[in-house]
Each structure stands twice: as C-alpha cells, then as structure tokens.
C-alpha cells in the first residue's frame, strides 16, 4: 500500500445527500457527480500527483427546473498515507474551467478549485491494484470568479482504483 514509484488512479465521485431547498422534501440525492484521473509518484507514505476531473452538478433555476453544469478541474496535489498505507489524506487545487455553463455564464471562464480529503481507506486488490474509498470529502469549485462568483460546494463520496507501476 505504500509502494514507491509511479501510479495512476481512475475515480468516480458523487454527492449522496444534500440539503433540499423545498420545505416538503427530506433532501436532495445524487445532485452532483464527477470523474477524474490522477497520476503521481509516491515516496513511501508521501506522494504528489496531478489530476484531471470532470465535475457535474445540477443547478436549480429560479423559474423552476434545473440545468446541468460542468467544470473541468486541473490540479496538483499531495497525499499522505498512514496506518501502513491503509488511510490516506490528500489535498489538491488548481484552475477550474467552466465547461457546460449555467444560463447566465459563458463556457471557458476560469476560476479555481480545491479538494480536501481528510481521511480515506485503501484496500489492496492485487500486487499492483489498490481500491480506495473516500467516504466524505470537501470540494469547492469556483469556475467563475467575476461578478457574483459561481461557487459549488460539494461533500463527496469517492471510489477509486489505483494501479502502481
């Protein structure tokens, strides 16, 4: 779990439950989801990586209904393994590019994002494969910084598979 060398990760994430806006609804489920690929180098229990992520979320419209919004996040980050590689903490940040805009914006605007994963679990699947679960992480994506900024806050659950080289 703490092997030295290069690795690649493929990941899916989802916001399982969020506060609902309507006073007659218990919550909003699966409002946001995303996919990412990461590649990095590990030295014992420390690693640095680059990440490319497609982040999607549904944004309610004032007049009713909702629209799908997407941001592409490109970041660098670091991670620390503990408990013999069983636990992972990571932080990533970088530019966020508005890819599918809400109706008041235009695609191509560039902002920032950061992604904090306080603690996740890792399980060895084979000599080269690791399955990881980050049960709750905090992601802030701000693809539009001008005017009233577009701020997307997500508490995510993520699952990834890591291949070590």
């Amino acid at each position, binding site marked *: 779990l703490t092997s030295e060398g290069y690795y690649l990760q493929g990941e899916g994430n989802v916001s399982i439950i969020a*506060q609902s806006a309507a006073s*007659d609804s218990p919550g*909003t489920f699966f409002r946001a989801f995303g996919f990412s690929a990461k590649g990095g180098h590990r030295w014992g229990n420390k690693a640095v990586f680059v990440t490319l992520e497609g982040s999607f979320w549904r944004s309610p419209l004032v007049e009713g209904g909702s629209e799908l919004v997407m941001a592409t996040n490109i970041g660098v980050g670091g991670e620390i393994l*503990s*408990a*013999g590689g069983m636990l992972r903490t990571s932080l990533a940040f970088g530019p966020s590019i508005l890819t599918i805009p809400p109706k008041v914006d235009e695609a191509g605007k560039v902002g920032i994002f950061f992604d904090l994963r*306080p603690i996740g679990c890792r399980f060895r699947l084979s000599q080269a494969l690791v399955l990881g679960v980050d049960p709750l992480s905090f992601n802030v994506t701000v693809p539009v910084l*001008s005017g009233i900024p577009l*701020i997307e806050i997500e508490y995510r659950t993520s699952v990834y598979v890591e291949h070590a080289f």
Partner: protein
Amino acid sequence: MSRPVLTLLLSLSLLLAPAAARAYSIGSGFTTSCHEVVTFSGLIDLVEAADTSTLKLPESDVWRRVAAEVGPALRATNPDAPPPSDLTDQQNFLMWSVIVGVRAPDVEGHSVSDLAALREIQADPSNDGQYLHALRGTSDDGVEGDLVAIDGTKRILREVMARARMAKDRPRIIKVPFYLDFYGKMQVDVAELAYLLGRAAHTLQDSYAHMLRSDDGVTVFHVSNYLEAINGTLSESRDGLAHSDSLDDCTRPIDVLTGRAAAVTDALARASKAYLDGDEAPFEKGLAPCQPNETDLTTCSWIDYNPSCAAALADGDEAAEEKQCCRGDNAYCGSKWLPIFREAQSKPYLEAVFGCSVSPARGRCQNGARGLFAALALAALRRRRGARVSAACLMLSGLASQPAPAKASSREIADRAPSPASAAAPLWKNEPYFVELEGHLSVFSDAPDTSMINLTTGYALRGGYRWGPWGVLGHIERNYWLPTEYSTALASGVLNLGVGGEFFFAGGFARSSVTIGPSILLFDTALHDAGRTGFFFDVRPIGVRYPLHEHIVIALDPLTVAYVQPIVFDENIIRLVEYRTVLGVEAVF
C-alpha cells in the same frame, strides 16, 4: 458559544451575504429591512383606510404564522409601524402580500445567502433584469444611457400594472415562494393584486436608491450601474456611476430620499386603484414630469429625468448637453447625495470580500492573496517551531506518522505498529468503558438552492462499552442552529438522543460510527411548537484518535454527516443535512 467564536462564525457568514443588499436592502439577518420599512410607511394609512371587508382570506393559516414570525424582524427598523393586533386579518393579509411582493424581485423566494440564485436573479445580463431594479443595462452608455434606463424602468412598471389589471379580472389568492429559516423554500399564500403592487413598488423605490437625484429627490440626474460594476468592467464616464450600497441603506442620512420613496409608494398604490378601475391617468401622471401648477408633487415626477438635459439630447444640441447634463466632470450637477453614493460602491464580489481584485480588467491580485500567503507562511512557521498545532495540522501531521493505538494501556502496545482490524481486537478488551465529551460545527450547505450557510454547532456526551474492535454507545447532543434570513440569533435547535455502534480499525487509530435516535425540537418556530419529535442519524465514516494519556484520548472526526429532522409528518418539515467536524475528548476506564 463564546463571543469571539460566534463573531468569527458570523463574520464568515457575512462574507457570503452582501450580494443580497443590492437594492434598498430587504430585511435579513444581515441587512436592514429598508424596502419593507419604506413600503410600510407609504402604505399603512392606505391599508388602514381601505375597505378590506370583502377580501378573501386563505384557508391555511401558514401565512399568518409566518408573518407573525418574520414581522417583528422586518418592522424592527420601523418603530412607527403599528403592531399586527391593530389591524384586521384582512388588512394584515393585504400588507403581508405587499411585503412579500416588495421583497420578491431581490430574491424570488430564495435565501438571501443563496449565491447561486442571487447571481441568476441579480446578475441577470438582460437589460430588463437591470431595469427591474432601476439600473442601467450593460448597453446603456453615457447620458443617453440614463434616458434608455429610465424608459426601461417605466416600461417594467407598466408591464407589472398590466399584469395586475389582468389579475383584477380574476381576483385570487396565489402561492409564491418564500424562504423561511430552517424550513427552506416554502409556498405561501398572497393576494395576487397586492403582491403585484409590492413588486411594482420595489422597482419604483429602487429608483430612489439607484438613481442619483436632485437634493429634493424629485429629479433624476443619473442612473447607476450594477452589473458592470460587479463584473469589474465599469468605466464611469461610459457606464455610469457604480451602484452604491450606501444609498441602499435607509439608516444613512437620506431621509429626503426614503421619505419621498415612501410618499410615491403611497401615490403608486392610489394610482393603481384607479388604474385597475380603468383610469390610467393617475398612473401615467406619476411617470410624467409634474406640471408647473401641480400642488401635490408626490403624484408626479416619480422617475423624472433632468428636463434640460433631456431636451438637449432630444434636440441634438451638444453644447446644451455639455452644459445641462450631469456627469462626473461637473460633479453630477452638484447633487448633495454624491458623497454618500461614492462611499460603498459595488465592485467585483471577491474583491469586496477579500480586498483583492481577481477581475481581468483590474489586473493582479492585491491585499487578499498577500494576506492569504502570509497566513499560510505563519502557519508553516508555527508548525516548524512546534509552538502550536491546530487540529487540522495535528490530523495531517499525525496521519503522516506511525500512529500509536489510541487506547494503549501499556508501552508494549503503544509501541506496536498499527495492526489490521482483526489484530486490533485484543487491545480493547481490558478497558471496555468510555465517556466522551465532544463539540461539533458545520459551516456550509452543499446545495445551490438553499442558503450556502448552514452554520450549526453544539456539544454532545457519549458513553458506551467496547469489546474487540466493536462498541455500542449512547449519545446525548445539543445542536444549535444559526438563522440567516431574519435574524442572526442562535436558535436553540434540537436535543438529539441516540444509540449507536462503532468500529475500530488501523490498530485502534481509526474509528467509524453510526448513531440514530429521536430529535426533539427545543424552540417554537413559525409553524411548530417546541417539543415536536422526529429523528436524527449521525454517520461518522472515519475519525482518528490520539492518546494523550493512558486513559485520555483526543478524537477527531474531520467530516461527518448528520441528518436532523425534528418535524416529520407535516406539509412543511424541518430537516437539516449537517456536514460536521467533530472534536472530542474521551476517557476510557
């Protein structure tokens, strides 16, 4: 909660709030209820005198309970407002409908701290989206732009009145969205006509906050610009003065303007009555310049542009335009409101919050980034010196090191490397009982259609029994909630009583737990009384633990999720999804 902590949290909340204060501010936990005050002042005599005996009331009394809840907050800055008990039910319903209407253009039933909705409503790039608030559209440049914006504002008013006329033919009660603390966006009953009058009043009142006027408030000298100001693309000579938060604040020394705004709101209501009866003359008179022999100046020149400038523009007389029109180079004709207007002008939002321009038009980042880097550097220095370690640093640095089993009772065990879950079991047999005192805090909501602020806090006492990697526990918790809409006084929230289980792994260094049980409302809300009982559950996926002493352990759960729903079976329910950070001290024995 200590005052410094509460102040810090409120400050954090305030960072997210200013977008709500774009017009005469509407009442909220952060802003003064100027629109409501001006409307109340302008309409109370009319409402008291009106024959409302035939006004139909809604079957549901939700409107009455919500009005009773938010009314005191909205009237707080208007000591002259009569208590609801002085009015009949019909009069209260009429006033309620107008007040909901006058708030609507700013939030359309959303939270004042729902940035996603506010940017759609207030940063609407269409010109009409700006005329709704008596502001310039993005293409309205120079002094000609003043006239275009004024015409656009008048057109918006005419359109609302036309809608009201249609509604008159089918007088009815309609449901409109309204955001109530802890409940979220709900539907409330309003009288459609009064609601539309409120919407029209909003636009008219905004013309006294967003247009630079003569000293007596009658003549418009200039129309300000919000959208290009917050986008960081504003050039004052071309796009006009940036919108001013100071002129939105009715507690500033602008009594002349707010007084006239209230007076013309009253005149608008009277003209509306005639309009709905088929006589458009009083309404059109309000939008036209006053005649020389006019004795009641509140019935005309509601939005009357500087007539000599308008004439020069109409004649194409550049020399006269240069002399008569109000611009920056002639101090906007010496309006005495200009110094106040310039006090708190709108700017890109993040620049306003962090004092840092991130707009391409403004160039590089200034103080904010410098401050941020300084804070990071300071944190790094502190860590290097080992002087003070924050909880976050403790967690991160702790994770980087080989952890000791948290409940280690002997050096032999403490020195062992973490074991897999199956091997951890023996560590927990000797001292099976535990008691834990903990505090929790949640800050942000993660849904864009609610307030972004979900500030809840509290403390809990936990205790239980463990065997091997497993444990059972009892949980007693106080959970306080911070409202955002009409107050910032911490609400008593709920008492949560739960039972649950926990599981240790990574040699006792990591813990997962689940708790579930009843959730008891501890305060009277607008719609429900204290004592109502629902349920809550608390999921803590992974927390870490650090031994301080043989019998004392620090426990940190960096992110947990708690679902709290004290009201279950009702049309309007309370449910909070709280993403918390929990820090506790545990005694094992």
